[in-house]
């Protein structure tokens, strides 16, 4: 551990990625080997195998994305997450059935709000970055919408656009913000914070999933999710908190702080995913990227949804608790 500490932040992050990719390669190799050996045409196992393969691919992609974000520095990270925001927002808007008179508001959101928000992240203007969308855009969207002169379902239409902006642009822009957040004394270690966030949020999700299968509790809200129960949520989040505590040495946190932060981040992520499920039910789709749906979307929103909710909560908790002012 002491030899680890003697490395520079740069080398530590590089080591982190080497370990991450090594572990992924190992898991993929094992999965490949077992898939070669296992010839039994068992439908259930096949289904499980397919799901595992899909999840594994998603993990690979996100690992590569984070590596790219780190390698390419502040500008690259900002651009990269900006593109993700764009794609996620595109998916969101597609399924939200906007009307003709929303055109100008949507243009404003896509081509002004999104680039500006990411420009604010890239320039580390965190004070303005935190209030730009909740304060200024909150007013600008309905103003533009009102000038379109269509009062039909005005509140509903604007709420949809505001929501999309909050989740897909505001929420997701906190991921590069974490990369760029400076802790006093630990320079350039934002990548660890993002890693910490993603690992804890993913752990919570996986454990929650496994728990719902073994616990078979009554769901809290059957209409929205047939699997969500408080017990499973709590176990998942607690597991994430434990994992976060074990990881505390890669972050600027002490162990108890890491426990609390991981609990907050993981809880926000899983609850956020639950909320997205409700939104999907409202829009009448199973997955955002349903292959049979009109869109031909890739289902990116499903992947980033927990992050969209967890990242801002985590970011502001960290920033407030450690009184970080850039």
């Amino acid at each position, binding site marked *: 551990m002491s030899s680890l500490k003697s490395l520079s932040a740069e080398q530590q992050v590089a080591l982190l990625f080497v370990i991450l990719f090594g572990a992924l390669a190992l898991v993929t190799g094992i999965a490949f080997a077992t898939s070669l050996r296992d010839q039994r045409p068992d439908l259930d196992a096949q289904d499980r195998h397919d799901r595992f393969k899909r999840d594994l691919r998603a993990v690979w992609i996100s690992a590569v994305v984070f590596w790219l974000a780190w390698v390419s520095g502040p500008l690259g990270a900002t651009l990269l997450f900006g593109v993700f925001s*764009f794609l996620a927002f595109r998916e969101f808007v*597609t399924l939200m059935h*906007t009307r003709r008179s929303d055109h100008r508001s949507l*243009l404003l959101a896509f081509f002004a709000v999104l680039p500006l928000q990411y420009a604010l992240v890239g320039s580390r203007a965190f004070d303005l970055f935190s209030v730009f969308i909740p304060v200024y855009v909150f007013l600008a969207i309905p103003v533009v919408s009102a000038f379109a002169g269509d009062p039909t379902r005005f509140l509903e239409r604007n709420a949809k656009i505001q929501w999309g902006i909050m989740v897909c642009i505001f929420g997701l822009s906190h991921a590069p913000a974490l990369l760029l957040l400076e802790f006093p004394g630990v320079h350039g270690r934002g990548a660890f914070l993002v890693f910490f966030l993603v690992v804890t949020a993913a752990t919570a999700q996986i454990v929650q999933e496994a728990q719902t299968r073994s616990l078979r509790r009554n769901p809290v809200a059957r209409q929205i999710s047939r699997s969500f129960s408080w017990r499973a949520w709590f176990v998942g989040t607690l597991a994430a908190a434990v994992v976060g505590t074990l990881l505390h040495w890669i972050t600027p946190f002490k162990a108890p702080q890491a426990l609390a932060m991981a609990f907050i981040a993981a809880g926000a992520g899983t609850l956020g995913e639950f909320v997205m499920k409700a939104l999907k039910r409202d829009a009448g789709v199973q997955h955002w990227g349903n292959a*049979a749906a009109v869109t*031909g*979307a890739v289902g990116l929103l499903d992947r980033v949804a927990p992050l969209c909710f967890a990242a801002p909560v985590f970011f502001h908790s960290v920033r407030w608790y450690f009184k970080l002012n850039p």
Partner: protein
Amino acid sequence: MTASPVVAQAAGLFLAFIARLITGAQGHWLGCPPKAEQRIYFANHQSHLDWVLIWAALPRELRAMTRPIAAKDYWTSSPFKQWLTSAVFNAVYVNRQRTDDQDPLEPLVDALNNGDSLVIFPEGTRSNKGEPQAFKSGLFHLAEQFPQVQLIPAWIDNVQRVMPKGEVVPVPILCSVTFGEPLQLQAGEDKRAFLERARDAVVALRPHAG
């Protein structure tokens, strides 16, 4: 304006990229595989973007041999429009004004004789009511003259939301193009029946038709 073919090709790739960025331009090949056969694609028409969308949804190898129809008076009125339609899209120009001595379908017939594939919008004009209007008879005459060319119905979905009438900047919203099973002109089938069948084939491809 004498831009080289390389510029035109680059412009084509760029346009396809933009179309994919804005709309996804997802092609669903339900009734037939994307193959380099001579085909006439016919689709519903809701927006100026329809052609670009179909074009971007095609695999790159098929784009060069698939040509749109463009109104000659409008699309040759400025050097840029002329360049865009001829060098980039390789459009077939047609006259909108009917003259006595010329068959309006003649340029299309020439292109088909040449071995090219065509994309046509048989409604003749854009409809924004959701339901396509009745098809014009051009499709029937082409089917009659070229029985060996496959007739592929296509439904373009969501595009009216990308750029409603009167707007100039498109909003990023995902669109899809669904290609259906090839249609054949039955022996002795009359014009009205065939055009109605063709229209039904297009409408049937609409997602969530129900």
